[in-house]
């Protein structure tokens, strides 16, 4: 029988959660079952936004406020990105709670972003009542259909009895194997109706059809070790998977034992400290010069937890043709997807490296490693030093990041948005601790940083979180300033303001004959906006004031917005032009 809105289970006293557990057997409604399931999964934080079709869950949440911290965002996209930031720094699933229709569709960008960057999310979405499904009811959208291609798994709950089992599956799927977003669409009737059986929750440990392989096959490990031991010019490429697997120590041990140089992808940054003698820089379109060029000279590439994104490979048909490839990856569908692997190893990066360590021979590749340093010298002379030693003109983005890096001693969690500032932040921040870069890699989502920084700060309250944001990106989700202020999170945000959509402008300059088509922004007074939300801030327009401004930002008690007016037409180099091979990387 369809439950109606007036039914409120009498067995569920609104006043106290403890009382619920003492009434046994308790036939609770779907919403309370959901709360209990979240608690069973150890969820302490939810990012959400209420609405009609999720109100029974919010009603239940009222009873659980002591145990679950619900954070009211300003837009559902903010909930998604905040949950991503939270998930990235904690390694646990970020949880979003939104209503049906527009609530759910507003989450879509964050879900797609989380899928491509392997971020565990559990998105709980309200849906119209079971009887109204498919009738184009108020705020009904086919969220299952919409999110099917961008979730790791999704499911529509139409019956309160399904809640415990489906929630257990959702958390297991989101957090295991290659992590990803899971969406649970829950009809309002399922939220309201009583379960027909006593609530029992069992955490999911395995599924018949989904069995990610954590422990690698020994023969695959042996084949990989043999290839590594035979290499004259081996090269380790590290992706996000190493940090997801918390395999930073094992990676370092592998590199140090074998003496192999290590480069990272964008999301792999901070896996290994940037001052480690074996670290040679980062790869990709705007990565470092040496690491890109040298991929074409290695004889064995050891790719760990990375997926050969086109921003890393450039033209994949010309990429590392000379090298044998060891590909270590938990997701078997990534093997041979872009680059054929000579020795694929399917498994969790930590487990694979642990299995490899006794099989690889100690080695010293100093001569080979020094080859990288020649390119470093060229990059330094041509790009880095000139960018950091300006005396005239406007402040350069590189100077801001370099100074920020020194003032925070490379210890902060850097959250970046997408564009030139993102690349500059990656180039010039000297990471010292693992898991310190939160950025939108695969999807390249503008508007990511502000809410993600908030989520990261909630997830890592003991660390300093600094968001580096472009003026264009900021205006996509700036309403989340309100969330930051309301929740008293000490997020430090830096807007690098060049009054342009900088990266698009750079491409237009280089590849479209400076035809600057709709990239110039007339910006608002960001500091007045921040103050309107109750956040302090200041603008820095002079190089001579930059150091003091950064000190003020970092020392401020509570959130702070620093706007730095930077050089208007600055370009990010090096650069591998789209579709070119990595050896065609440009220095200017």
């Amino acid at each position: 029988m369809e439950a109606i809105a007036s039914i409120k289970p009498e067995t569920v006293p609104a006043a106290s959660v403890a009382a619920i557990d003492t009434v046994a057997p308790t036939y609770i409604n779907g919403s309370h079952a959901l709360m209990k399931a979240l608690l069973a999964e150890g969820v302490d934080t939810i990012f959400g936004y209420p609405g009609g079709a999720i109100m029974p869950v919010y009603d239940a949440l009222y009873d659980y406020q002591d145990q679950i911290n619900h954070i009211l965002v300003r837009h559902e996209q903010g909930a998604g990105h905040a949950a991503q930031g939270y998930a990235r720094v904690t390694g646990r699933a970020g949880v979003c709670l939104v209503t049906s229709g527009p609530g759910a569709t507003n989450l879509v960008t964050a879900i797609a972003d989380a899928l491509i960057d392997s971020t565990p999310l559990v998105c709980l979405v309200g849906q119209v009542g079971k009887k109204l499904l498919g009738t184009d009811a108020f705020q009904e959208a086919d969220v299952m259909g919409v999110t099917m291609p961008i979730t790791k798994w999704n499911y529509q709950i139409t019956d309160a009895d399904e809640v415990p089992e489906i929630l257990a599956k959702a958390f297991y799927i989101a957090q295991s194997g290659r992590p990803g977003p899971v969406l649970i669409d829950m009809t309002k009737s399922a939220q309201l109706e009583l379960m027909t059986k006593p609530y029992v929750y069992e955490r999911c440990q395995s599924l018949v059809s989904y069995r990610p392989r954590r422990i690698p096959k020994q023969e695959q490990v042996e084949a990989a070790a043999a290839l590594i031991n035979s290499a004259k010019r081996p090269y380790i490429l590290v992706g996000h998977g190493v940090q997801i697997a918390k395999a930073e120590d094992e990676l370092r041990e592998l590199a140090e034992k074998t003496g192999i140089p290590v480069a990272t992808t964008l999301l792999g940054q901070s896996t290994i400290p940037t001052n480690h003698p074996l670290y040679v820089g980062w790869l990709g379109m705007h990565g470092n010069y040496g690491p890109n060029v040298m991929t074409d000279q290695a004889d064995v590439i050891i790719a760990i937890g990375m997926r050969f994104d086109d921003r890393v490979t450039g033209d994949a048909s010309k990429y590392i043709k000379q090298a044998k490839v060891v590909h270590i990856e938990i997701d078997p569908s990534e093997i041979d997807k872009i680059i054929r692997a000579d020795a694929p190893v399917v498994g969790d990066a930590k487990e694979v490296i642990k299995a490899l360590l006794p099989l690889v021979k100690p080695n010293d590749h100093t001569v080979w490693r020094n080859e990288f340093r020649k390119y470093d010298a060229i990059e330094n002379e041509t790009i880095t030093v000139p960018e950091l030693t300006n005396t005239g003109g406007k402040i350069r983005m590189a100077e801001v990041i370099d100074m920020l890096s020194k003032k925070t001693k490379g210890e902060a969690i850097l959250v970046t948005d997408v564009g030139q500032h993102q690349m500059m932040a990656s180039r010039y921040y000297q990471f010292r601790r693992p898991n310190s870069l939160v950025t939108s890699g695969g999807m390249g989502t503008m508007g990511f940083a502000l809410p993600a920084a908030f989520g990261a700060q909630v997830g890592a309250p003991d660390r300093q979180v600094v968001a580096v944001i472009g003026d264009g990106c900021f205006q996509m989700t700036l309403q989340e300033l309100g969330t930051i202020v309301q929740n008293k999170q000490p997020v430090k945000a830096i807007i690098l303001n060049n009054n342009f959509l900088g990266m698009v402008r750079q491409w237009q300059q280089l590849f479209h004959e400076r035809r600057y088509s709709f990239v110039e922004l007339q910006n608002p007074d960001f500091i007045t906006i921040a103050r309107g939300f109750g956040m302090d801030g200041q603008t820095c327009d002079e190089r001579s004031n930059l150091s003091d401004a950064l000190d003020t930002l970092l020392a401020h008690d509570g959130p702070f917005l620093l706007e730095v007016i930077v050089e208007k037409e600055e370009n990010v180099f090096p650069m591998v032009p789209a579709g070119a091979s990595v050896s065609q990387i440009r220095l200017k």
Partner: protein
Amino acid sequence: MTTYTICIFTENTIGLLNRITIIFTRRRINIESLTVSETERKGVSRFTIVIKHESREEVEKLVRQIRKIVEVMAVFGYLNDEIVYNEIALFKISTPLGSKSLDVETINKEYKAWVVYWGLDYVVIEKTGNDTEIFEFFAYIKQYDILEFVRSGRVAVGKTEKGLVEYLPESEWAYYL
């Protein structure tokens, strides 16, 4: 172009057809035919999808992407000589008074097709076989007035000694796991 028959074993859940076909759509691979039914194991469905492709490598990638779907238990990709397969075709043939009479003996003996329904002025003929056999029969029968023609998707079983469900859930795309 090579014909591949992809057999997918899944949990029997709502919406899975969508999830699977999206993978073909994203890679711009056309599905020639698709059939779904429950297997001898309760709760386990079997999809049989036929595609044509010039690159085995791309088909292998496709299979791995399908395997990635949470509810998918196993995926097997076959070439034609590795399977026994058939389709069913129904032909509705106009037979009004005074028209050329059907040569039922030829239809039965030569083409192994059967009249399965006699209407007042039409008959329905069923032909089971692979696509070549069905189109051979089509070429023959088109001398009569074909009112309707419909083919099912391919159904196929592998030429292995064991049933495919025997491989569940342990079976994998063996090379990779």
